[in-house]
């Protein structure tokens, strides 16, 4: 059973790992992905720096959608533990957005399940990013085809 949280506050990666592994000796490897707010001046926004990012979601649906995704990961791989924490609200460049942790007996399941979880979270969970720039302008981030391609690697 995965630990799932949607929250405005930051997460503590060390504490989350400890929570997943506490008192266990059967875990042989952990997979970890941390998504971070990136100020990418090379993007199409033509050299403007990012002021902040706001993550909105569809609260009634979010936990259910993430639960479906973690359930799918648990069906596909023998996981000994799984944590997904997704932040919402306003975040500054350099701040954490999302944490995916998986625990398994062997590395392949942990690494593959981690990649699967973040690929599906990016395309199948109801979150939307809005970028704010220092001049006060704000734009909704458009979905990227590369994310759909990444998600499609893991057949339905």
């Amino acid at each position, binding site marked *: 059973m995965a630990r799932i949280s949607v929250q405005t506050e930051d997460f503590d990666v060390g504490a989350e790992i400890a929570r997943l592994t506490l008192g266990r000796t059967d875990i042989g490897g952990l997979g970890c992905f941390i*998504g971070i707010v990136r100020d990418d001046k090379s993007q199409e926004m033509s050299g403007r720096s990012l002021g902040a990012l706001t*993550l909105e*979601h*569809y609260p*009634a*649906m979010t936990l*259910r*959608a993430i639960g479906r995704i973690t359930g799918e990961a648990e069906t596909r791989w023998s996981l000994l533990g799984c944590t997904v924490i*997704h932040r919402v609200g306003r975040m500054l460049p350099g701040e954490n*957005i*999302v944490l995916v942790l998986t625990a398994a007996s062997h590395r392949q399941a942990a690494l593959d399940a981690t990649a699967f979880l*973040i690929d599906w*979270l*990016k*395309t*199948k*969970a*109801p*979150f*939307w*990013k809005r970028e704010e720039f220092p001049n006060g302008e704000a734009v*909704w*981030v*458009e*979905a*990227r085809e590369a*994310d759909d391609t990444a998600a499609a690697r893991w057949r339905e």
Partner: protein
Amino acid sequence: MGVAEETLTLPGTVTTVADLVAHLAGLDQRHAAAFKDRETVRCAVNQEFADAMTVLRPGDEIAFFPPVTGG
């Protein structure tokens, strides 16, 4: 559509998501604009992803939104 929520009474001919989209797009300019590029509009019925052929029932919560961009 520019609104978080609205409650509608639908004609009996609306039985699927596709029917609802066609109905909404014909209501007024605001709705028509929201469905201008229908390929990019995603839908959920009762908080589960749905497609054009999903059948609707009285009391359903139907959400339309753009492709997601979380993670």
